[in-house]
């Protein structure tokens, strides 16, 4: 194998595939990045067996020539070193050539690195997926969906299926749900598909995969194709494939968890509430429980307070746009509410309470594509 490649393109691709590489893998070859060259261009692959990323750099596109391929072939190089090395090489181009015994030479400017490579034949092949269940979304929309749900996944392995985000569709409506059983985030979007029989349910993508994917997604309307099978999901970009394993197990039914009635409802400024909770959390963080007390007062006013036995207490009043229904006193984990408010892009939020010990719902004021559900904390 022997080729010369534009450094910037190459670094960009290496960084993408490197996101999938884990130093803690049980399969030694997966600590490396695989490089394949064909007559069309260079393909890079990284994987930790849960996530696999394949990035392709074409020989040329409409405008530029990226790679000069002198000889096709494959090599696997230790990701830990290789990713750092290519980032720090000085020249605009990098020349890579493989000799006997996988000995690899990197040249850039006046720098020469000689690296010991690994046998590319040992590298596992990426799955070939059946493309029956396919739909597409604009990259920026998918990025938003991930941002608005993934923070709510569980970090506990006690119920593994909750460490992922559940994808489900009803015709062209796609719903993503994440919950750690104390809070739940749900986001709905319209999808585009040619397949009338698109049926996605119990597709649970690990939160970690989505967090990595989010870093690859760009703020553009360009679509990404999504292919779903029983055990894998594939996100297809123009020059990049992102595979993730799906989580086993049945995701709990969450639709019926959203309360339909309400006892107390209010609408108030997202920022006012967010900032107030952040202040209150300064003290409850000290108490290590993040508990914030919340109550309704006369005249559309709510009061937020938190207490730390050692430090002191804080009380704050907020005037709501509207406040209706029963008087309420409730305590909750302020950190969870803050997480949700940060991903709500609307100026106002609508909050529906159903009692001091029952779940409550926060929705954006101007659309119904998103909701956040929380269970309160109980005091004794």
């Amino acid at each position, binding site marked *: 194998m022997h080729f010369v490649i534009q450094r910037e393109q190459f670094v960009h691709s290496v960084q993408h595939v490197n996101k999938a590489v884990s130093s803690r893998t049980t399969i030694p070859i997966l600590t490396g990045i695989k490089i394949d060259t064909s007559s069309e261009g260079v393909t890079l692959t990284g994987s930790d067996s849960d996530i696999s990323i394949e990035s392709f750099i074409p020989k040329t596109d409409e405008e530029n020539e990226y790679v000069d391929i002198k000889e096709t072939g494959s090599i696997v190089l230790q990701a830990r070193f290789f990713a750092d090395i290519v980032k720090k090489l000085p020249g605009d181009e990098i020349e890579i050539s493989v000799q006997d015994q996988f000995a690899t030479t990197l040249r850039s400017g006046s720098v020469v690195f000689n690296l010991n490579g690994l046998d590319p034949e040992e590298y596992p092949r990426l799955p070939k997926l059946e493309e029956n269940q396919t739909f597409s979304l604009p990259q920026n929309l998918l990025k938003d969906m991930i941002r608005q749900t993934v923070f709510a996944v569980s970090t506990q392995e006690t119920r593994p299926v909750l460490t992922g985000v559940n994808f489900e569709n009803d015709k062209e409506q796609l719903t993503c749900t994440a919950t750690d059983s104390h809070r739940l985030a749900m986001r709905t979007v319209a999808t585009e598909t040619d397949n009338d029989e698109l049926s996605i349910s119990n597709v649970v993508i690990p939160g970690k995969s989505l967090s990595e994917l989010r870093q690859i997604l760009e703020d553009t309307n360009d679509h990404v194709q999504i292919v779903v099978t029983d055990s894998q999901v594939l996100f297809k970009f123009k020059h990049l494939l992102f595979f993730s394993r799906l989580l086993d197990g049945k995701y709990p039914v969450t639709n019926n968890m959203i309360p339909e009635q309400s006892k107390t409802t209010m609408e108030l400024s997202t920022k006012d509430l967010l900032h107030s909770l952040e202040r209150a959390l300064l003290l409850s963080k000290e108490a290590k429980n993040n508990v914030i007390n919340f109550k309704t007062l006369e005249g559309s006013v709510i009061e937020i307070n938190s207490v730390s*036995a050692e430090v002191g207490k804080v009380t704050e009043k907020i005037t709501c746009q509207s406040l209706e229904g029963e008087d309420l006193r409730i305590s909750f984990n302020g950190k969870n509410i803050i997480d949700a408010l940060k991903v709500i892009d609307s100026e106002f939020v609508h909050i529906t309470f159903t009692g001091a*010990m029952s779940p409550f719902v926060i929705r954006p004021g101007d659309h119904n594509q998103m909701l956040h559900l929380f*269970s309160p904390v109980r005091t004794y």
Partner: protein
Amino acid sequence: MNGHDWNGKIIFHVDMNSFYASVESNHDPSLAGKPLAIAGNPKQRKGIVVTASYEAREYGVKTTMPVWQALKKCPNLIIRPPDFTKYRAASAELFHFLEEYTDLVEPVSIDEGYMDVTSNFKKRNVLHMAEEIQNRLYKELGLPSSIGIAPGKFLAKMASDMKKPLGITVLRKRELSQKLWPLPVEDMHGIGMKTADKLKQWDIYTIGDLAAYSVDSLKGRFGVMGKKLYERANGIDYRIVDPEAAKEVKSVGSSTTMSADVNQKQELLNVISMLSEKVEARLKHKQVCSDNFQITIRYSDRKTITRSRKLLNPIFTKEEIKTQAVELLERYWNGESVRLLGITGLEVIPIADAYKQLDLFSYKKDIKEAKLSATMSQLTNKYGNHILKKGHNHTDS
């Protein structure tokens, strides 16, 4: 007092007078000088007085008195519900203040503590220092207090009780026969009604009777505690003032040594059930819970392991404690013969400060459970059981 030829210790016991009532009137100056009572549930006439201001006491209002009775004694009595957040903040301020004088401050409860001022004694007159502390507590923090000064913790505690409010009492060892020994034995700190009754059966009516009794008989009847009581009555008390002591009361547990080494799992599980019950009772008695439970396993070769696990929510029922202990046992017991088993709740927190994060999938269970316990506490409120116990604990605050 003169510090030059002194080689013992000087201990202060600083005890706030009507602490809750003082704190309330600091927050609301309109209450100052008026008869005020802090009562469990002021709306219900059946609530019980937890603390009364001295103005209220003059009318005969007493701790543990039902509100209706207190109102009969003092018709213009002002009644407030307790606000422990306020009291804890004031308490923290109080101990910070005392630490200005010495690092050796040991909080005993929310409103009393010991100070070891032996090193101050070398430099200045500690009686003047006590006066200064009392004056400043009153002027700067608005807290009236009584201070007992003695060569040990027990005598200092007894001394601070001798003159209230705003008293300073020095209790020297050579004064025990006049000042301490004539007191009835139930006035002795550490002796409850039950112990007092038992002592009376032995014709021990005063602290002096106790001090003169045979230490061996006391030890025979009451064990280690008997010996301690005897020593205290004689002014012997080597306990040091330990600033960390309050923090150390952080675990509550129970353990048992088997009559024979056990290697049958079912038998160990039975022991765990029994221990869980005991731990539940002890947690309940101290009004605390824990989110971190530990088991101790001592094998027959004396090798001992402790394993613990942190939980999301604090627990206090025997069922929950048992579940945790069984999981730890199943995970860490190596199958060999066990000599001792123990369960301990670490880093306990007062139930009043405990929170439980409800679960979206199972919160309905908690609603049911809360309704049940609300009914239960209404019942205890009605009969004053729970509050009575509390009132007795801080007899005179």
